[in-house]
């Protein structure tokens, strides 16, 4: 189901949580909303789900204007930032809640819950209570609960926010696979650019309640519209008065460089190295080199070098 957001605005007192946001979310896509803390990501999801009413603008799902439709009738699966499990219900009851509300027969609920628990790999925890689950398990339970109602749209608010790096990477992978299996239009909120780049097929970058840029992740990475997007979507530095990606720069001999400078530090991270250069114009930049490049160039601190963009060379 496609979602289109038209000039959505939401203010809390004097805070402009969401300001004139318009976006088209393609049917079956996995869209990541990316932005720093407080940029209005959660508020945007609440507006889409109907948990908050926009001051202005409208939400259209599959051609139907749902701005005035109560969230309980929108058929939207929502996974909350902190999972919001029903603490006094076990996993089975949690997952079956939406079906019970929809007055499905106990037999049907039972079968569907079993199926979903298998999907999220929680069969062995069916009778456990949320307090007895790990963070990752709670997250998967919340996902199963949201999926149980066969939602038209799935909204995930920082689904991996509170988890450690390993579980995070695992779940991220798993969500991507799940999405390929069931193809429900999904909007995922995150403030982690790597996560967004890895999972999403469409990105919406927000800042202070506004959409700064949206589109294909790779296109955004390579052609960021503003310095903010550039800095937000990956490592960045400045070179010759412009924002640049450190891996787009290279070190050459003094005469070949667009600018020259003196190496002030070399940090080796194993598979790559960060070389900081103080340029002749007084600014400083850093260049990302592969391990092999570093080894073959015989660099050391205080050496005079030239710096240029890699794409300035013609092959």
């Amino acid at each position, binding site marked *: 189901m496609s979602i289109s957001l038209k000039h959505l605005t939401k203010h809390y007192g004097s805070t402009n949580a969401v300001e004139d946001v318009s976006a088209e979310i393609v049917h079956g896509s996995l869209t990541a909303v990316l932005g720093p803390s407080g940029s209005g990501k959660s508020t945007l999801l609440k507006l889409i*789900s109907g948990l908050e009413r926009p001051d202005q603008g409208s939400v259209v799902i599959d051609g139907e204007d749902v701005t005035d439709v109560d*969230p*309980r009738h929108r058929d939207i699966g929502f996974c909350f930032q*902190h999972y*919001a499990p*029903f603490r006094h219900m076990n996993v089975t009851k949690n997952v079956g*809640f939406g079906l019970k*509300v929809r007055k499905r027969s106990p037999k049907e609920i039972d079968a569907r819950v079993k199926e979903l628990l298998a999907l999220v790999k929680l069969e062995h925890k069916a009778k456990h209570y949320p307090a007895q689950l790990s963070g990752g398990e709670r997250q998967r339970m919340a996902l199963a*609960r*949201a999926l149980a109602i066969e939602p038209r749209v799935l909204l995930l608010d920082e689904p991996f926010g509170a988890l450690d790096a390993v579980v995070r990477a695992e779940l991220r992978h798993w969500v991507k696979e799940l999405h390929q299996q069931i193809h429900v239009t999904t909007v995922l909120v995150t403030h982690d650019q790597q996560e967004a780049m890895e999972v999403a097929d469409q990105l919406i970058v927000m800042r202070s309640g506004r959409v700064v840029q949206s589109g294909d992740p790779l296109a955004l990475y390579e052609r960021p519209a503003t310095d903010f997007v550039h800095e937000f979507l990956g490592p960045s530095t400045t070179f010759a008065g412009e924002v640049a990606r450190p891996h787009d720069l290279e070190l050459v001999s003094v005469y070949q460089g667009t600018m020259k400078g003196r190496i002030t530090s070399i940090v080796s991270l194993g598979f790559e190295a960060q070389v900081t250069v103080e340029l002749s114009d007084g600014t400083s930049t850093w260049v990302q080199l592969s391990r092999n490049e570093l080894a073959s160039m015989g660099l050391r601190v205080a050496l005079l070098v030239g710096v240029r963009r890699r794409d300035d060379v013609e092959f």
Partner: protein
Amino acid sequence: MGRRHWPLRGVVLLYLGVLVGLPVVFLVLKALGHGFPAFWSEITKPDALSALKLSIEVAAIAVPINTVVGVGAALLVARHNFFGKRVLDTIFDVPVAISPVIIGVALVLAYSRIGWFGAPLTRWGIMVLFSPLGVVLATMTVSLPYVLRSIVPVLLELGVDQEQAARTLGAGRVRIFWYVTLPAIRWAVLYGVTLTLARTLGEFGAVLVVSGNITGVTQTLPIYIFDSWDQRFDVLGSYSGALVLAMMSMAVLAVLALLRRRERRLRVDLA
């Protein structure tokens, strides 16, 4: 608890003993001093029984009503924003902040034949003062805040996430309340109900003022105890009634202690 604490423990126990223990022991000794049959015949006198009956009836009306009102008001205060919310919140504290006697006097002013509410009610033939209705009203007023005050902090700490999740899953207000909110606050509600019950059974001042102290009609157990002792010099009747009331309150306290333990365990679970 280390050995070094024993002097402190000793002082606290002594203090409690003097303040609470001794009077209770004396009460038991005095009430049962003439043997159990004498005690039994005292508390089965018609006036004593009717006082006990009225106390229980008043509690049976006041506690459920205050529970429903308290839960409703707590939801309003914790979940909604509206003009006058602070005022509402504060009004709930008035009954515990001011003396019950003042509440009694205020009720008399409002419901007397010439009072604001009293005048029209009298015309309809409804007597509030000097009737069991007045006793119920006074009791409800003094025990008003306990349910609200036990629930609001729990509701605020709980947050709205679970309720919102239920809403996106298709649940309406009523179902969200019964299946999500109420189970989450049930211990706090029970705690509030117990406090309300304890206060209801023990209320004296406000009831004395509005009831007119009519033996057999508007006399609750606390007033019967006072009346026997102060007006009729029926010392044994007074002690016996007091022992019954004390035992009822003890039972309520025991339930309260159990709930506290249960609640603490629950908090640990949720942490």
